[in-house]
């Protein structure tokens, strides 16, 4: 899998005429090198980060890491380097010095982030965005990548089997996080990717936070806040397994034996109808606009997803990556995004009835040669089966 990913990066470097990549973002480095690193908050992950250098024509990436024990076993010894603290002038100069032995100054390098010290140290190079190369390489997954995503999702789903029975009146959001985080580590997750979300949804938007667009505020961070009987909870979590992210989304109801109301069952039925409509058009050659239009048609022309997000997004070493469907990039963008085998879609339609809250769940599919295959498999309790 790592060799296939490296080949894809090399193909894109050649196609786009770049001489190399210098990658700093956690998920980009994971993709380019396969290097293992502990889950860290963003500040630590930036200051003490693995850095990937990909040189055009060299099938092995170079890895500069504070966690050498996480280097993949096939990485040649002369491709494993000490950590480069690129937010510091000394550290950036050390990276530049090593880089000069790999790529001659004047070369065109794709970069995702360039802290000022690194910018000064790489003054002799022409720096361009890396996203053209990494985005194109990551867009369609290999068979092994799909297996990794499925494994990550299965682990996340298994942990939820222990969490949902705890959703009783008086439990706090962070109590639920405690159960979840313990369980995902026990089950073998690499690390947790996002503060687990257990957000009680207000019946009316006016009872929730103010938003710039007037729509739903989601996702909000968790707190030691007790949940009440009957609260509608939108759940959203993600963990990393084998370098790949999961994305679990469900709607739950707080209670000892929660029973959705007729209105809530109707919301779930409409959500299901949107899913069926979208799944029916997913196949190679369909565009993102086809999916968005199918979703809207199933909801009588309304837009059944969160305004600041999307109907669907990809998942890989990033928890949300291309393809994005239904964003504010607009219909022209969606019309130009053509599905191909290996693309992954996390479908997350939302039904909202102001005054009666709403229903949101997420399911993951991969585009196959003639349709799609599910990568997620979790019940819709207490709403389902449909």
């Amino acid at each position, binding site marked *: 899998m790592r060799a296939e990913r490296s080949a894809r990066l090399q193909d894109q470097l050649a196609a786009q005429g770049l001489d190399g990549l210098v990658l700093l973002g956690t998920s980009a480095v994971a993709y380019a090198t396969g290097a293992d690193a502990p889950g860290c908050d963003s500040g630590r992950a930036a200051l003490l980060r693995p850095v990937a250098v990909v040189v055009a024509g060299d099938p092995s990436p170079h890895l500069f890491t504070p966690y050498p024990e996480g280097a993949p076993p096939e990485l040649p010894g002369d491709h494993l380097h*000490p950590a480069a603290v690129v937010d510091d002038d*000394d550290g950036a100069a050390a990276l530049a010095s090593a880089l000069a032995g790999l790529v001659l100054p004047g070369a065109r390098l794709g970069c995702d982030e360039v802290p000022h010290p690194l910018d000064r140290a790489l003054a002799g190079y022409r720096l361009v965005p890396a996203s053209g190369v990494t985005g194109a390489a990551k867009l369609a997954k290999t068979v092994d990548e799909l297996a990794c995503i499925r494994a990550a999702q299965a682990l996340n789903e298994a942990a939820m089997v222990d969490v949902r029975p705890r959703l009783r009146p008086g439990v706090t959001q962070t109590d639920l996080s405690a159960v979840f985080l313990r369980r995902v580590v026990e089950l073998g997750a690499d690390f947790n990717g996002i503060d687990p979300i257990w957000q009680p949804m207000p019946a009316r938007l006016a009872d929730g936070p103010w938003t710039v667009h007037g729509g739903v505020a989601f996702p909000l961070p968790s707190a030691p806040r007790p949940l009440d009987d009957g609260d509608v909870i939108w759940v959203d979590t993600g963990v990393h397994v084998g370098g790949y992210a999961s994305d679990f989304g469900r709607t739950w109801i707080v209670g000892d034996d929660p029973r959705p109301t007729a209105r809530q069952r109707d919301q779930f039925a409409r959500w299901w109808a949107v899913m069926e409509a979208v799944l029916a058009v997913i196949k190679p050659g369909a565009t993102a606009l086809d999916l968005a239009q199918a979703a809207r048609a199933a909801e009588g022309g309304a837009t059944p997803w969160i305004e600041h997000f999307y109907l669907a997004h990809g998942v890989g070493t990033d928890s949300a990556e291309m393809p994005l469907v239904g964003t504010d990039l607009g219909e022209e963008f969606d019309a130009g995004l053509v599905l191909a085998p290996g693309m992954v879609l996390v479908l997350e339609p939302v039904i909202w009835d102001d005054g009666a809250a709403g229903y949101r769940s997420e399911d993951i599919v991969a585009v196959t040669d003639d349709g799609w295959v599910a990568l997620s498999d979790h019940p819709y309790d207490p709403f389902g089966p449909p």
Partner: protein
Amino acid sequence: MSVLADPTCVDDADVRADRRRRLFAAMDDAGLDALVLGRPAEVAFATGARQLWTAGSRPFGPACVAVRATGRTHLLSTWDAEVPPEVGHDDLYGLTWNPALLAASLAAIPGLADAARVGTTSSSPGFPRLLASAAPRAEVVDGGPALWAARGPKSGAEVERIVAACRLAAAGRDAMVAALRPGASERDLVAAHLAAIAERGAPAPPTEAVASASPAGPRRRPSAEPIAAGRLVALDPGAFFRGYEGGFGRTVVAGGGPVAGADAAVGAVVAACRAGATGADLLAAWAASGEPPPAGPLATGVGLGLEPPVIGAGVGAATVLAPRTVLAVSGWVGGALRRDLVLVTAGEPRVLTEDL
């Protein structure tokens, strides 16, 4: 005691006001008309907003813009939940996937179009062009020094929060010690730590690398193998309290008691943490203990997460320690870890983790 129980709530108004005052004073001193911030901890420092925690680093983007002429901080947030009242609705710009819409949001920030000098805390190959569309006359400069002038020295209230985070971390340590029964693995210890701090309301630790029983040195990914009796187990718990990081490192023997193997060497470095001392002084204090050079950083800043300076082999020797900064000093000796947090003062350093 002003520090309350909830480790996650938006912090007190006086703490926020003090940070904001320091930020704009540093911008004044550096002659910055605007400062564009990207990383979550920077945004928390400037605005006090509590945003959703995610693991890992992401590419730089304009998550917050502070404008000197207006004294306002503009925040990338689609909602006002967990946003303090001094950041008004007019100061919020929503999440977008569309660079043209982001550019329009930035262009609408009052005072940014007239800025002559704009600092950014990081950059990317595409960012200068985006910023130029909103601040066409601006010279774009490194805003890092101004940010760290404001963020580095800690107020008393900030130190209180770091100490509160250390207490949460101690609960994580206690849970790991309790979980260290015959047959337990590193993974069991990490699970116990995560659950213990989440039960206290602080689910995201600074790192999940909190337990290592590897004789080969620190291991960052926990093993599921049972830890053999007699094995050294390095415990490195950590937690956040209202964004501030606390933590410490200690070593125990599986089936036995604490191990002091690294205490003397780390203690010597801690004693050297005085205002005006350099990174080279700290490295010399470590070398004087006779131990081999540390593989990882010997010292890093701590505050709203890990901060500069990073002092270790090949990095940070010229750093001059500033008063009121907090450093994490860590060292491994013979498979034993010790890590302490220390407040740098003009006189004796104050160890924040001595009794833990």
